[in-house]
């Protein structure tokens, strides 16, 4: 999709884009499971139900619209992807169980992967046949990601690597088929050097997975132990020793445009306004006390939408997303929290009720717990503030 790179500002979509929107809306309305009807994707049944949904989307080429057609996409641009996301969240379609692969690994693979890697991995990723988890954090490497100690040594036959170490907080690690992550291939090199980006099958000999129940009680995390796990050379992404810069490309997409499209928040904010209006009829005095926060949460979501289109226009004109991605991550994560925290305030004594079916029985509470993770994952907001201060404002490093 071409964007007019000159001409006056115009925030309207083209007729072709509106047609694309109508097609997406039509397909989603006919196919998407009812909101909240699938079990949590962190349960075994829920994981498979979400995988089935990915497969249904893939069958009609809706799972990865921005990818080239040969990998199951529609080869559309960033604006169409944002339009698709608006329709996706409008109808409250299921959370994407394949998001680690589709939104985080895939952009890196398109940039750094070999043709053979793309041919091997992208279609099963898009169809949900192979679901990926992320092997970044370690017990002693969280915000200080360069402190990674898991290592990789050459295999005796010199045809690959033997991976040893421990990864933790791997979302969807309890069920995923594949894992991408960083391992130290040169123990003598300085922190950021000597790291390599690997793609590992979770059923490889020597991999042990220990699920970790999250705050909602479901095993959304896993620890992954690697004991001399053989990984062939064909599963190194980017060059040996290039892991840090390859990984940072993924981190940029995670915080920047691809992981959290604004529709997620604008839709949640509309539902918050509806909740407010409903409470206003029942208990006006109580609702009035939340009015300012409701308006602020709606504004935060709307500002995020505008900022995303502003950034998308810059990218379409050949610009890049640099340290602004850090500002972005701070904003969306705090917006998500503000929306859900405000909803709980409106619910009052009902906020803590789960209805007996676990946290998922109260979507606002479930969303609140999910939102609480936002300022932590993808690089804590404290780390992002350092990036904004140092790279946007030029303040000196500590």
């Amino acid at each position: 999709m071409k964007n007019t790179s000159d001409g006056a500002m115009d925030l309207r979509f083209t007729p072709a884009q509106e047609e694309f929107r109508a097609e997406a809306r039509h397909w989603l309305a006919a196919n998407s499971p009812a909101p909240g009807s699938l079990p949590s994707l962190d349960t075994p049944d829920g994981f498979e139900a979400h995988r089935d949904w990915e497969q249904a989307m893939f069958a009609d080429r809706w799972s990865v619209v921005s990818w080239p057609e040969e990998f199951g996409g529609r080869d559309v641009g960033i604006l169409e992807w944002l339009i698709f996301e608006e329709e996706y969240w409008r109808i409250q379609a299921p959370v994407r169980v394949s998001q680690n692969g589709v939104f985080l690994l895939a952009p890196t693979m398109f940039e750094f992967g070999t043709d053979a890697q793309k041919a091997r991995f992208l279609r099963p990723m898009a169809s949900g046949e192979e679901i990926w988890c992320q092997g970044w954090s370690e017990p002693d490497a969280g915000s200080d990601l360069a402190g990674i100690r898991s290592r990789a040594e050459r295999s005796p036959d010199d045809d690959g690597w033997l991976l040893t170490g421990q990864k933790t907080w791997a979302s969807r690690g309890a069920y995923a088929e594949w894992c991408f992550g960083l391992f130290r291939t040169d123990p003598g090199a300085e922190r950021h050097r000597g790291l390599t980006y690997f793609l590992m099958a979770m059923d490889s000999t020597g991999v042990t997975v220990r699920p970790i129940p999250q705050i909602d009680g479901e095993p959304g995390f896993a620890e992954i132990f690697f004991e001399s796990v053989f990984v062939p050379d064909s599963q190194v992404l980017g060059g040996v020793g290039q892991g840090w810069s390859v990984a940072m490309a993924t981190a940029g997409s995670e915080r920047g445009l691809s992981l959290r499209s604004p529709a997620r928040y604008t839709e949640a904010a509309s539902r918050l306004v509806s909740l407010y209006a409903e409470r206003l009829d029942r208990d006006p005095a109580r609702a009035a006390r939340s009015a300012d926060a409701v308006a602020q949460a709606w504004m935060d979501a709307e500002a995020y939408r505008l900022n995303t289109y502003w950034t998308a226009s810059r990218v379409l004109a050949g610009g890049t997303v640099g340290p602004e991605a850090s500002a972005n991550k701070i904003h969306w994560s705090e917006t998500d929290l503000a929306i859900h925290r405000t909803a709980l305030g409106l619910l009052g004594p009902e906020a803590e009720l789960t209805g007996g079916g676990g946290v998922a029985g109260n979507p606002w509470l479930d969303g609140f717990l999910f939102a609480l993770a936002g300022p932590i994952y993808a690089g804590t907001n404290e780390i992002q503030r350092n990036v904004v201060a140092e790279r946007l404002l030029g303040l000196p490093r500590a």
Partner: protein
Amino acid sequence: MRFAFTEQQTEFRDAVRQVLTKECTPDDLRAAFDTPAARTERWTTLAEMGVVGLTVPEPRGGLGLDLLDLVPLLEEAGRSALPEPLIETTGLAAPLLAAFPSDRSADWLEGIAGGQITAAVAPVDVISGSVGSPAGQATVPAAVGADLYILSSASGIHAVPCTDVMVTPVPSLDPTRRLGTIDWEPTTTTLIASGEDAREALAHLADRASVATAAELLGLADRMISIAAAYAKERNQFGKPIGSFQAVKHLLAGVQVKLEFARPAVYGAAWSLGQVEPAGSASGSRGASLAKAYASDAATEAARVSLQVHGAIGYTWECDLHLYLKRAWALAESWGSSADHRSRILASLVEELHQTQD
């Protein structure tokens, strides 16, 4: 979807920045604090560049452009805390005079484009849509020394020459605001719009003013943050620049994020108001409110943070910082506080929800 300024708009902005960097220095601002004036040499320079007449129709000597073109220039005005009334004259009065022609509007428009006429505009309450404040007679910014007054009465909107008004100055924390109360008599000669036309024009005026003011606040916020960041790099404590401490970094980063997100909100609102959709349309007005609330909050936080980063020196008359703080505080509460605008947004959203449910 093309959400970006054109090369021409960007170049004009850069040219204005260059001029104001030279002609609107902190020393110039101190001089303006001592002797505030509606028209200055700097104003003449801006008129010659086409800035002042930007929204004046071409046949009257202007550039015939709109709010969207003006926004980047207002940002520059804010960055330099320009004391002259660009919002009132170019942002508000000229478009109104052009939309509601009268016997004298051609002369006034030509005078504005030429830099000989500045305007004051009586604020409209963004919640009630009526003129003035419920607390009493409205104080009008840019009133002292203005040549033309855009005022409202029960009969409609009036354009009143300075010979027909009596202005009583009202002191402000920022003397360049030139606040005043205005005594005047509405007549049929001064009336430029009445009835539904006037009601719509006032609603649109409130939206435009909110966005124009928001644009100046963006520039002010950016200036305060950059002054504070520069200070944090040069001021040493514990043997290091204070800007290397996370406590200081996070203060500045937090407000920088707010500013980054306020910008597209203001630009998007300016674009929306320029569309053919009816003046005062719900989504256009919400956009204007979003712009004003976001920019006000970014600027007041920038004021708070930049003062904190400076420590005691920032609290002095000698330090330039206060020249920008005071304008930011004044503009943040003009044309609706951020709380006013949040309230306006929520009322509009709930109303729309009820309409779709009916």
